[in-house]
């Protein structure tokens, strides 16, 4: 390390400093916003009955944990997200693979996928409840509806846009379609697949909450729905804050794996 020139050491320091500065600024913004919020609430400039306040969020959290099984609600939502992610990503992967391997099918289903993807899925909510029943299954079907088609479209697009020269090379070696799939398509698209997982997770988060808002007996979406019905804004906002924390944790988990892969 000591072989670096003084200029380089300075340069490294500057990069590090900048990184910390970004972190500190990011943190200050959120702290600042919460402080202002709390201040406005304490000074009675905003109505805490409508807008809640950070301190009431904290006290709501305490009550939720001790009396209302908050952890249980979070686990229910997480479980639903996990199941829908696995299902939609698995199904999406299989369908995208089939479409990639069969150009005819891809062309045939292209307009259907586009329509299904752009259809506002909330409109299907009542139908799903009637057909699937008012249960967790409805929530997962709702989530699938929202996340599956975009996953298929994304993966298929990535698969079919893979650098053609690798494929030509393998074809000249008389490779089978399976060889091309496992040795080129999958390998060349690992980064894209990770990105698709990112989109998939956030879509399923939306889908699960949407489903819970429509029909549920537990989960964060249920808490939001229940809170709004009894006009308990503290409960609604607290649940939204928890959701924000969960979604960012999920994001950072995937990011961690992405970084791990890049280091390889």
């Amino acid at each position, binding site marked *: 390390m000591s072989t670096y020139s003084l200029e380089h050491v300075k340069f490294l320091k500057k990069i590090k400093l900048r990184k910390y500065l970004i972190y500190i600024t990011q943190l200050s913004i959120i702290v600042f916003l919460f402080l202002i919020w709390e201040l406005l609430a304490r000074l009675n400039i905003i109505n805490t009955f409508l807008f809640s306040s950070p301190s009431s969020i904290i006290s709501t959290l305490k009550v939720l944990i001790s009396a209302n099984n908050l952890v249980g609600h979070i686990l229910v939502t997480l479980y639903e997200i996990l199941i829908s992610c696995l299902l939609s990503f698995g199904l999406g992967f299989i369908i995208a693979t089939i479409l990639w391997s069969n150009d005819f099918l891809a062309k045939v289903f292209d307009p259907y996928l586009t329509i299904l993807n752009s259809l506002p899925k909330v409109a299907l909510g009542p139908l799903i409840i009637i057909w699937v029943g008012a249960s967790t299954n409805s929530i997962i079907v709702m989530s699938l509806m929202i996340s599956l088609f975009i996953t298929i479209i994304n993966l298929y697009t990535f698969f079919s846009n893979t650098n053609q*020269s*690798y494929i*030509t*090379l*393998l*074809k*000249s*070696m*008389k*490779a089978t379609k399976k*060889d091309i799939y496992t*040795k*080129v398509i999958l*390998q*060349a698209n*690992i980064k894209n697949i990770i990105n698709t997982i990112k989109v998939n997770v956030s879509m399923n988060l939306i889908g699960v909450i949407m489903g819970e808002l429509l029909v549920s007996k537990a989960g964060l979406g249920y808490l939001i729905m229940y809170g709004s019905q009894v006009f308990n804004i503290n409960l609604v906002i607290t649940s939204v804050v928890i959701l924000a924390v969960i979604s960012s944790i999920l994001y950072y988990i995937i990011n961690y794996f992405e970084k791990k892969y890049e280091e390889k």
Partner: protein
Amino acid sequence: MQDNILAIKNLKKIYHDKSGETLAIDDLSIDIKDKEIVAFVGPSGCGKSTLLGILAGLEEKSDGQVIFNGRKKLGYMLQTDSLMPWRTILENALIGLEISKTKTKENIDKVNKMLDKYGLHDFKDKYPRNLSGGMRQRVALIRTLATNPNILLLDEPYSALDYQTRLALSNDLYKIIKEEGKTVLIITHDIAEAISMADRIVVLSKRPCKIKKIYDVNLTNKGLPIDNRKAPEFSIYYDKIWRDLDVHL
């Protein structure tokens, strides 16, 4: 003729699309001798690559015959090195063996030896991004040779490289081909490269691609490509081929 390794007879290729059909190759016939280096030069877009594509089995021909005498094992090298960034140099060089399911210890040893011999020993476990353009092309050549083909199809193999690197690599390529005793069909738009490397030069016409002329290259003191450029006949061939190509801007 017994020593012909490959005979192309009345080859024809038509491309079809909605707006009509294009005759890419028309009535092309040529015999290729064993261990011969034949260069195809022609104006860009004349269908040279199509010819190799058909020989490599990547494209269907419309009419005519392609007859291989004896062992038919082709090695096809593209314009870009097409090294896969997620594979190490050794893994890249071994991909042909993986595809043909002949990744035996013996064959792996052979590839390792080639990498050592051609100056890539220290780079086996590196990734393509760590190598210069010239080294990457050398890996691409070893990858092509790994499956032990007897006919090499080279489609403007060095067109993406700078001039100095090309000269050096042409020399390398020539040495390797001669050592390994391969028959080579090489496509190039570089007349000098063709004269310095090839035993025969086939000049192709504009679309549809036909044989305009075939030259047997006879140079005094024929040796390595870089030395062949100094031969007195070099400029004469160059001039003739240049006229044949009839380049207009």
